[in-house]
């Protein structure tokens, strides 16, 4: 029983991270209807930038975090301006493929700059595991969870109450109407990409902290697809809740199914769940039911 609780708690903590990355996907999708499959590589890039700031430039962590967020803003605006804007109105396949292409370019670029060596992150959180009383959470995971929750709440507050957030929601619900109300849709698109990239880099730093960084850590970004589909592609709350569900289910698979098949089931479990959701409820838990039956 103890191990079960432990696994569930670990799953919840992982789920918080998934929720944060899923938030990045959803922020971009909601405003611009683009599913950014390069999200994983945004994460990796964030982790590498932060890593370089900490080890090469030797700045304190909060400054490194701030600089990484600035880098994320630059990346977001650049990607939106240069790559996505020419493709507005193109079919789904073009938009999907361009983000995949972007991911490949980023991955290759990082391979050239940082080489494919696996690195561990410098210690930024106190190493003591966090004891909840009934379960113990490893320090990285706990602090990651805290970061993810703070990030998520910050994004939620911005989205709900600030002028910018209202503008973003307006664009998400109807671009024409938003334009006629004097909202700059271009600006909102750029902003959505910035927010998405920021969520991704925070996720990247946290994950890098837990399991070390390498060029290939971005593959986790694809797993998060299961989260956003379960939550509904355009629901922020759904993404966070689904993050927890997938995190727990994934860890339970690791506990119960892995010994049966000899490992590896944990990593593929989100994709099985993904297929199931698509068959039963394609618009997810809270997504808009826009899918027409064909």
């Amino acid at each position: 029983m103890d191990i079960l609780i432990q696994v569930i708690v670990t799953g919840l903590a992982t789920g918080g991270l998934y929720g944060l990355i899923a938030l990045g996907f959803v922020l971009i999708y909601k405003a611009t209807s683009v599913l950014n499959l390069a999200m994983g590589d945004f994460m990796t890039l964030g982790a590498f930038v932060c890593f370089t700031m900490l080890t090469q430039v030797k700045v304190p962590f909060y400054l490194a975090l701030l600089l990484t967020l600035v880098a994320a803003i630059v990346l977001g605006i650049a990607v939106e301006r240069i790559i996505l804007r020419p493709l507005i109105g193109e079919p789904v396949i073009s938009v999907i493929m361009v983000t995949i292409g972007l991911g490949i370019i980023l991955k290759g670029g990082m391979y050239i700059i940082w080489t494919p060596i696996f690195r561990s992150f410098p210690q930024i959180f106190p190493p003591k595991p966090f004891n909840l009383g009934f379960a113990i959470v490893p320090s990285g995971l706990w602090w990651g969870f805290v970061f993810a929750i703070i990030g998520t709440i910050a994004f939620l507050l911005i989205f709900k109450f600030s002028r910018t957030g209202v503008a973003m929601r307006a664009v998400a619900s109807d671009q024409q109407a938003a334009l006629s109300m004097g909202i700059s849709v271009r600006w909102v698109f750029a902003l959505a990409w910035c927010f998405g990239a920021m969520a991704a880099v925070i996720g990247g730093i946290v994950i890098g902290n837990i399991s070390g960084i390498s060029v290939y850590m971005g593959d986790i970004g694809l797993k998060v697809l299961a989260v956003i589909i379960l939550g509904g592609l355009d629901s922020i709350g759904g993404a966070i809740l689904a993050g927890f569900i997938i995190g727990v289910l994934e860890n339970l698979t690791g506990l119960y199914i892995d010994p049966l098949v000899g490992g590896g089931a944990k990593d593929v479990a989100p994709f099985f769940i993904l297929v199931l959701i698509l068959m039963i409820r394609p618009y997810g838990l809270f997504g808009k039911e826009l899918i027409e039956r064909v």
Partner: protein
Amino acid sequence: MRCGDFKETYIQDEAIFQSLFVKFWLCLLFLFLLAFPFMANAYLLYVANMIGFAIIGAIGLNLLTGFTGQISLGHAAFLGVGAYTSAILVTRLGFPFWLSVPCAGLVAALAGLIIGIPSLRVKGLYLCIATLAAQFIFEFIFTRWESMTKGITGIHIPPPTIAGYAIKTEKDFYWITLFFVALAVGYARNLIRSRTGRAFIAIRDRDLSAEIIGINLFRSKLSSFAISSFYAGVAGALWMTFLKVVTPDHFPFLLSIQYLAMIIVGGLGSVLGSIFGAVFITLTPELLNYLSEIVKASAPGYEEIFVPMKEVIFGVLIVLFLIFEPRGLAEIWNRIKAFFRLWPFSY
């Protein structure tokens, strides 16, 4: 003076060989392909074989994505299914090579039917994600179903024999590849002018309208998935027989992307485009290898940059084509043809 395509009957419009000119050049091309193995060295023949497998797979994906409009991010999985089927049939059940290839295609088609089922319920982005999930699930099966696939060690495939003659060299295999490529191109060309093919195109353009004019969406979409996977299965079986060993590492997600890149660079919804794309995407890394050899000789130590460079250039190609030439090389080809048709009085 003739200055355009004049098609006065439907028969003319649907003809495979549109003009005498096309027939002439096709004959010339075919003669070149027949003469090629006698002129080329082993390396060139190896590349030619790889291009052949890529052409078969790319045409398959183009039938599904370019003609029917169903995006698949899991094409590599079907290549894998085909490759493993043929390997298992040959090594366990002693099937002859010529029988194992169509069987590989059939099993892959069956897998395609199963993966195609979500397409009846979801489309666009959601279908794309469903096929992505299928890709990872199949990768997992290839690695973990060890009693069948021998896991990561892979299965060794003996060289195929046809009528008692063992196919060992690249040159021998070239004839097999050429045969299958010719078959694949011919079938696809014919399919798209048939009722089924036109139904595919109608579904791509607007699925609801297609249903209203009497196309059975259920049957058309599934048959598109099945035909596409059949092509992939055949390509996978040939490819792995050629390489003599099949492991799960041969069918990563990146391979699916490569195939999508082929049809995007070549031209969506064009058989000729699939061929262009397959040639282009297969040749680019080979060209970079060649460059890296030169760099290695003149400035040693710098050649390592070419490993990630391949990825970067691949990504840049995808992005540039999507932004500047979304209809691909086939469109460029058409433009060149149009230019010379009226040259030098193009106005």
